[in-house]
């Protein structure tokens, strides 16, 4: 998945156009805020995973729907990432120049995110997978997402403006 995204971003001629912006003034603002929302959902994913694995004790009694809420938040985060990734790949492409460090790192991280997400979505269905597999892959997904947010949303808010809606 990661390689496929990277190859597409490299060989596709970037359109350089806006795509979806919803009620934001432009696509970049939409992407910066959507990525922030995705990060919040991913933070809940991390917390709820820690609760399900017994690493945190709040809430003391875990509701029966807690696992489904974990799945819902992850699915929603992935759904929100689709229009963001579409604009990244279709309109901007993969940055191959190491000299453009932020864009280069963001390109790599974006590809890694979808590779790690695909691995997690696959691994979660294999109940005989090693017990360390899911936490490790989930940790990679979350860490990658944090790095993506730092190289785009934080950069956007500090460079272009805040809230810049």
């Amino acid at each position, binding site marked *: 998945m990661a390689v496929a995204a990277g190859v597409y971003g490299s060989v596709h001629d970037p359109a350089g156009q806006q795509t979806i912006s919803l009620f934001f003034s432009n696509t*970049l603002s939409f992407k910066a805020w959507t990525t922030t929302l995705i990060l919040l959902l991913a933070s809940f994913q991390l917390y709820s995973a820690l609760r399900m694995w017994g690493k945190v004790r709040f809430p003391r009694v875990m509701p029966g729907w807690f696992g489904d809420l974990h*799945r*819902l938040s992850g699915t*929603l985060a992935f759904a929100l990432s689709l229009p963001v990734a579409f604009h990244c790949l*279709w309109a901007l492409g993969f940055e191959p*120049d190491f000299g453009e460090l932020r864009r280069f790192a963001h390109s790599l991280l974006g590809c890694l995110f979808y590779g790690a997400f695909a691995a997690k979505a696959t691994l979660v269905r294999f109940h005989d997978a090693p017990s360390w597999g899911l936490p490790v892959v989930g940790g990679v997904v979350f860490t990658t997402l944090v790095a993506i947010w730092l190289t785009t949303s934080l950069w956007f808010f500090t460079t272009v403006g805040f809230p810049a809606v």
Partner: protein
Amino acid sequence: MFPRLVNLFQLVVALAALATVVLLFTVSPSVAGSGSPDVVEGTELFQSSCSGCHGAGGEGGVGPALAGGLARFGSMGEVVRFVSTGVPGRMPGFETRLGPDEINAVVRFVWTDLAGR
């Protein structure tokens, strides 16, 4: 009930992901204004072709700011050539997407209205 709704939502999102992949290979860049003189407007062309990287008001984004900028260029002609050919890995060339009149129109808009040259 809740687990079923989540399952259904996951199915919908999976289809949306599939649709996104299809769109990546099927959507062509829009060539705003081609063949229609009344829409060969620099502002419209800028919004459709440039604002994705340079911001809706030319304030910058993925690409550099254009508003109040363009100091590196000495004339509109230089900008036209730059926009036409692009820079590999940084900015697409627009000579295959826009006609000469359209490139001139959008550069005129950027040069005068955004950069204030």
